[in-house]
């Protein structure tokens, strides 16, 4: 599903470089809260008569407990199955007939619902969204059918996809202490025994206006959004939600390794280091240094991994590095590689190659040229991201939902420019060591017998 991939890419991208009013007139952004605690953020973008509405809930798979994995994602599916004013699927049918794009996504830290539509229809999106926040039906027969769809989704996206399967197991190992080890779609054993009562309890616990953020970007004014938000969400009462503990990890859990034999043709490698996120870092500068390291390694075809390992040594057919700073708790700095089997390279050699690049970061600061290139990309990306109202809204919603502020957007360039070459070297020395490391080797099933 291309659009999905693109949107996921946009999310990753947004996580790297949120936008900023740079080199263009800043877009007016307004923030207010209703009396029931619903936070609303409106960003004006008047280029086209369209608008995106996103409602973000502070709940996701990292909130779940063993035996109940997959609840947040399953609830997301059931949110389309009816509420007080709407029968099962009816909201979606109404939106479709209005020509809206709509969807939802669930992650470790959030569950979000969105509609993109012509500006004159915003009220419909808000009324539907408010209705299912206030009065979800959760019928047992709809659940019985939908859980089968979710199992199909798991088979399609995880069980029949070796790379996804590998990452699920890797993640479970790499986060020993926090809920981040839980796969968002849930373990199959938990899907098999999930009940509609559990979903009702999950909904009651977390779906309250004071646990949500409404983000609107497009051809609207703050005052019209405020009137609509009050009208549709204003009467929904505030409710206590359970305390949400920030997911904390051990600083140095010790080196962990797994070998997986899967239905794959190509071996591959995953490496992850336990590191803080922006919400948990003692020194935010370290986090921004890690973000820049991600870009130095993999921010374009001229970055270090493609230049040195893919083209230079031809050690890998592909390699990547990524790090998400904008999470609720601690994070992971992840590297992956596929050894160049055509050139006879092995997993061990690829792992050694990735380590050489990490050691290089520890041993010498990056050059001014390299940093200038990264800066140019950051500046341009801040403008490019403004071409899409959806990615603007997603950046705002994600920051707010993980407990940071959307105003970080405006500090983006300054934060990154404050990072010195020495900071980068120090961050590499602090975090890239074996006590923090998890490694997965993924091999074809046939090679097990060799």
């Amino acid at each position: 599903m291309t659009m999905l991939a693109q949107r996921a890419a946009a999310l990753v991208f947004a996580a790297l470089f949120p936008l900023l009013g740079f080199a263009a007139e800043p877009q007016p952004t307004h923030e207010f809260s209703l009396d029931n605690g619903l936070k609303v953020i409106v960003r004006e973008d008047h280029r086209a008569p369209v608008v995106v509405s996103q409602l973000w809930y502070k709940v996701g798979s990292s909130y779940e407990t063993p035996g109940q994995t997959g609840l947040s994602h399953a609830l997301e599916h059931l949110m389309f199955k009816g509420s007080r004013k709407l029968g099962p699927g009816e909201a979606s049918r109404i939106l479709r007939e209005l020509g809206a794009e709509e969807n939802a996504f669930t992650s470790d830290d959030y569950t979000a619902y969105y509609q993109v539509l012509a500006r004159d229809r915003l009220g419909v999106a808000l009324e539907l969204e408010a209705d299912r926040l206030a009065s979800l039906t959760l019928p047992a027969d709809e659940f019985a059918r939908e859980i089968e769809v979710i199992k199909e989704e798991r088979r399609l996206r995880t069980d029949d996809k070796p790379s996804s399967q590998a990452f699920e197991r890797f993640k479970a190992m790499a986060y020993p202490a926090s809920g981040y080890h839980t796969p968002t779609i849930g373990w199959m054993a938990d899907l098999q025994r999930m009940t509609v009562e559990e979903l009702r309890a999950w909904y009651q616990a977390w779906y309250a206006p004071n646990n949500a953020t409404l983000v609107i970007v497009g051809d609207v004014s703050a005052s019209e959004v405020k009137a609509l938000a009050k009208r549709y969400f204003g009467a929904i009462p505030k409710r206590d939600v359970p305390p949400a503990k920030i997911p904390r990890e051990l600083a140095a859990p010790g080196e962990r390794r797994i070998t997986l034999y899967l239905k794959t043709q190509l071996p591959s490698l995953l490496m992850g280091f336990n590191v803080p996120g922006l919400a948990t870092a003692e020194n935010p500068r370290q986090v921004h240094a890690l973000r820049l390291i991600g870009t130095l390694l993999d921010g374009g075809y001229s970055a270090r991994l493609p230049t040195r390992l893919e083209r230079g040594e031809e050690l890998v057919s592909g390699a990547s590095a990524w790090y998400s700073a904008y999470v609720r708790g601690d994070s992971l700095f992840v590297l992956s590689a596929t050894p160049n089997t055509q050139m006879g390279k092995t997993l061990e050699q690829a792992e050694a190659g990735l380590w050489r690049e990490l050691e290089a970061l520890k041993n010498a600061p990056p050059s001014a040229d390299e940093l200038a290139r990264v800066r140019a990309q950051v500046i341009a990306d801040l403008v490019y991201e403004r071409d899409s109202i959806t990615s603007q809204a997603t950046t705002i919603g994600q920051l707010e939902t993980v407990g940071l502020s959307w105003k970080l957007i405006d500090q983006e360039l300054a934060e990154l420019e404050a990072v010195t070459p020495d900071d980068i070297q120090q961050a590499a020395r602090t975090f890239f060591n074996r006590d923090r490391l998890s490694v997965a080797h993924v091999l074809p099933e046939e090679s097990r017998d060799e």
Partner: protein
Amino acid sequence: MSERNGLRYGLLGLALLVLLAILALVANRPDVPVNQAESLPAKPAKLESLAELNGQAPTHRNLKIQSWQTAEGAKVLFVEAPQLPMFDLRLTFAAGSSQDGEVQGLAMLTNAMLNEGVPGKDVGAIAAGFESLGAEFGNGAYRDMAVASLRSLTAPEQREPALRLFSEVIGQPTFPEDALARIKNQMLAGFEYQKQSPGKLASLELFERLYGNHPYAHSSDGTATSIPQIGREQLQAFHAKAYAAGNVVIALVGDLSRSEAEALVAQVSGALPKGPALAKIAQPQEPEAGAHHIDFPSNQTHLLIAQLGIDRRDPDYAALYLGNQIFGGGGFGTRLMEEVREKRGLTYGVYSGFSAMQARGPFMINLQTRAELSEGTLQLVKDLLRDYLASGPTQEELDNAKREMAGSFPLSTASNAAIVGQLGSMGFYDLPLDYLEVFMQQVQALTAEQVKTAMAKHLDPEALVIVSAGPSVEQQELPPPTDTPAEQPAGVPEH
């Protein structure tokens, strides 16, 4: 992302970036809108907001498309967008794999090698050149077309060097031997990777069965036997004829005046090899109907059900687009999604669509389901298609689909990225400048009978080409369908 790194991520499918990013961040429902019962009773709207809508089609961004030809014969489509200090430039060449001739994968490999070397610069210098300006180079090759694109800031200190480099890349690629060897190896790794994807294997098989000896039959990627044999001089020859200025459409959107745009496009057009448009490819022959199974050790079975459809200039395009939109286009709310997913929980997603191409592209239905229910599911989908072709859409379905298309129209031109894509497609398929408006008018004027007639004319439920990929397991009966309750269930939890 997929476009920018077409080769690295698209072709090779380097899972451990894209797929993992998806898994880590998003586990959601299929794209798009939802749900549609057969009969939407005209019950009183319970939504205040819906009752307040005036029923008029929404306004949309007014595109002033400007068009001209360059001195070298390239067609240009330009939209001025002064709101953001950036531009998107998209060159669409009739240089897809249907022009491969005997050398499968030649078009793709030529396209992938554009940015691997120019006089005085190797791949690293080219990449560093774009990236140090914050510019994004993109490329990709498909069956009809090959694309090269540039996104950059418009300030002269970024725009001018970015354009110089882009002009070198599209006009003077050197196709270095070492890079060629490396890219071939990566493509071979990509072919290995494909073997773990039942959906991909099914798709390869389907196109071969649909198209036989036609140039659409083979994958744009070529094969593990064709790619190693391609030499540098073949790439040079293909570039000289297929990347000629007479064989390209140049689409441009951004913060540029007409005169700035003309200068920019003249520079790009002048950098290309001189030459005319390539001859259009012939229409394919009708395929042999029938089913073929690929045994694969997955949990699910992938099903592809297809026929030859239409080319992009077919007069029935609007009727078929609307007809398909009701049957299985765009996700939730279609007949397929309603019957297969919503009422029976058999699949995560089921879609149908016409790919209207230069020559007749496929009409295809695709889905995945539990292996033990695959035969029953296939029969269900075939029955749904037969019923739809026999009876056509209801008036209500037709009205709803028209409303939907009018409502989504503003979204199709909301961003620069969306507009440049529309311009590229309109230019490539020789559509008039007012095409978007005309298409919408055509759709709104259609009757249910016209849609039924067009669908029945182009599709035959007895002439399907079917490919499945999955394990061979004992089959079970389908569960019975459940109907969406017409009345609202009582007992809604209150807060």
